[in-house]
């Protein structure tokens, strides 16, 4: 029975009962003594995260000779040659573009199909809903190694091999369930009375969804897109199997640095650095959504 308990939504809308900025500031001030000591934990943690990345970056600016001949803390013979190799060779830099293209396609497809599904899960009960939801999650649990050959044959049956679309579609396997999961959390945070108010106002469902609902869960879409980006960008096994040359991902191109003539550390690390950059840019753009989005949704 519809006993409307005051939702968290309502709560957030009443400044007095939510954690106001002033109250927060007060708390921080009250804890200044603690605060100084506490700040070292994230600092050390971030240092721990950054040192290996620094090492990667520093190697990428060294010639191979310097890399293999011993340890230098920073590049003694600073060089951009490793990057030059990549940017002068279309078979290198095109893979970079390929990766971005299929990742973005995957993001769009995943979020687009996940939105209505998440809406259904957050608003309605229907035959088999709970099992369906768990089944979707199980798709994240299948070890992909054996699935790659069926994937290859399935996509070649549809003539999709070596297209960006194939990889984007295949990555939906693990990204769509995640996107549904995340979005469902965010949508559940929006009271369904908003939907009803819109219907009462005369909105049709698509119009309501586009004009009222999507802006409301923008943070959720941001977070979902972030996770889709993340898991699609880092995946290699499937992407490599479904592509040949035209859609080859950067991570697959990196295997060529290791050959019968040795390992080209310089180019390998330069390519590694380049793979970090898009991720860093994406985080920068969604950073506020992540902080806010996590707070609202239940991810």
């Amino acid at each position, binding site marked *: 029975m519809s006993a409307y308990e005051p939702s968290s939504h309502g709560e957030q809308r009443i400044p007095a009962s939510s954690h106001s900025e002033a109250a927060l500031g007060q708390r921080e001030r009250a804890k200044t003594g603690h605060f100084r000591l506490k700040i070292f934990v994230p600092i050390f943690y971030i240092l721990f995260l950054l040192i290996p990345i620094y090492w990667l970056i520093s190697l990428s600016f060294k010639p191979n000779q310097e890399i293999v001949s011993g340890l230098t803390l920073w590049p003694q013979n600073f060089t951009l040659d490793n990057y030059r190799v990549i940017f002068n060779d279309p078979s290198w830099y095109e893979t970079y573009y390929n990766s971005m293209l299929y990742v973005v396609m995957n993001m769009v497809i995943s979020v687009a199909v996940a939105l209505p599904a998440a809406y259904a899960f957050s608003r309605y009960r229907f035959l088999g809903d709970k099992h369906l939801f768990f089944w979707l999650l199980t798709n994240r649990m299948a070890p992909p190694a054996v699935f790659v050959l069926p994937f290859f044959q399935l996509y070649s049956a549809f003539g999709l091999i070596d297209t960006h679309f194939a990889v984007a579609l295949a990555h939906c396997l693990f990204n769509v369930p995640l996107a549904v999961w995340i979005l469902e959390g965010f949508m559940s945070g929006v009271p369904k009375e908003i939907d009803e108010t819109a219907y009462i106002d005369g909105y049709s469902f698509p119009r309501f969804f586009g004009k009222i609902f999507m802006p409301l869960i923008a943070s959720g879409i941001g977070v979902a897109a972030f996770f889709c980006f993340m898991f699609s960008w880092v995946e290699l096994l499937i992407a490599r199997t479904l592509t040949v040359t035209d859609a080859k991902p950067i991570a*697959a191109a990196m295997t060529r640095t290791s050959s019968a*003539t040795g390992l080209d550390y310089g180019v390998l690390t330069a390519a590694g650095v380049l793979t970090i950059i898009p991720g860093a840019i994406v985080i920068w753009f969604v950073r506020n959504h992540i902080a806010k989005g996590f707070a609202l949704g239940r991810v």
Partner: protein
Amino acid sequence: MKRMLLGSTALVAVALASGPAFAGMEEAKQFLDAEIGDMSSLSRAEQEQQMQWFIDAAQPFQGMDIKVVSETITTHEYESKVLAPAFTAITGIQVTHDLIGEGDVIEKLQTQMQSGENIYDAYINDSDLIGTHWRYKQVRDLSDWMEGEGKDVTDPMLDIDDFIGKSFTTAPDGKLYQLPDQQFANLYWFRYDWFNDETNKADFKEKYGYDLGVPVNWSAYEDIAEFFTGREIDGKQVYGHMDYGKKDPSLGWRFTDAWLSMAGNGDKGIPNGKPVDEWGIRVTDTDQPSGSCVARGGDTNGPAAVYSIAKYLDWLKAYAPPEAQGMTFSESGPVPAQGQIAQQIFWYTAFTADMVKEGIPVVNEDGSPKWRMAPSPHGVYWVEGMKLGYQDAGSWTLMNSTPVDRAKAAWLYAQFVVSKTVDVKKSHVGLTFIRESTIRDDSFTERAPKLGGLVEFYRSPARVQWTPTGTNVPDYPKLAQLWWQNIGDAASGSKTPQEAMDALCAAQEQVLARLERAGVQGDIGPKLNEEHDMDYWVEQAKANGTLAPQPMKENEKETPITISYDELVKSWQDSEASMPMKEGGMEATPASGDAMTKPAN
């Protein structure tokens, strides 16, 4: 080398970009002018004749877009960046020559073999798969192809007999299944300067009682490794040995490629032992694999194989830098160039280009190398007539599942990159010789002193003792994977070498049994022998005049033998002068007693 490569790439790219849009002789001439010049075993007229043939033969395929793939080594980079665009300009066939890791090439090839879907129109993969290709019948038999379907696209100037790796890609049925594109060998590598240092020589002689020189057998190699390890040279601690031990597919190659054959596993025979090859796989008279364990007449877990594993482990622990244990093949390759390694039991000549770069610790100021390459030493089970090392022959393979017109276009490209027109130039870039005519080219006589013995080796008759995996191996991808797993177990000490090899041969036989059960390979597929004890097989070998499996030798530390490098080279030249090249059958290791030294008793 890389700079030179990039320079010429740019040049060709500019030349081609400015040319007219239609494919033809104009482009061919531009290409010959800009890229080939006199770096060819053909005269300019012959070059143009060959180019004209390509233009004509490619006529029906103009505008076609084909994809071929190979691993990443300098030779293939040159093909991908210089020859492929040139071929496109000349013939109008769009070629994408993709470069990926070697493991990935095999994976794509297997995917195509499993699914029957065409992924690449042609593959350059190692001739190690010859037994696989021959038995599964999934690749085009090139002998028939050149006479039949592919006759109109087969270059009359191809000259198959000029390929030094022809025997590696020929199956027991006498048919050619692959066309070599690049080859490199596994040779002994050592610091010529240190070996000729008077103090080192005197100290060595004093300690071991014989001259420091190129080791002919493992016994000498071991002494030299011990001698150099921990020694201080030019203010640095050096090591007497280099290898690698990370659990990685490349660890398996090391053994299937070379360690076992050097140790003396299997039977005599060139390119591979018959009936038992260096993998320890026995075949019947009709080339049906019949066993891998000693119990079925194989030699994978025989004394020679176990001995090679034991030596590998001992030496890696005792004489190699500690980090070598965590390295793969690719990582360990450049280490000797850092100048702390005295010798390496076998080393891929593919590293030559990187080892002669100016300014690195192993090159003199005048640009000549401080190191040399020489035949690898052999183990105690090795006897004359066995292969002595590994030679990689990356070869063109056309799959049956590739549509015929695409196969034809790819075949044209394959012939172009191995044509006599381009081969000398290509070999100068990548140092991976495939043609006798190229090896004999004057330009290499000139360049020889800078290459540390590479040219001398290839001109010597000894080179036929370096061969890839042979036709006894019925499914290379499935079987090769078993090696690194099992040897990894031995490397960690969780199994003794004997236990590891027992497990390995059992696993190999399991694959053979599955093949036999399924019967996919027909009458050339596996047919396992009955199990017997070792004595039975030793007796059988004696009766048949073969060798494997050899019983355990009581003394595995034989009398060490070394040879002076300069004498060795001279003996190669001598034999070249005295004997015309023949396929196989050559007495390879210099036998002249005065050049070799043994400890004085």
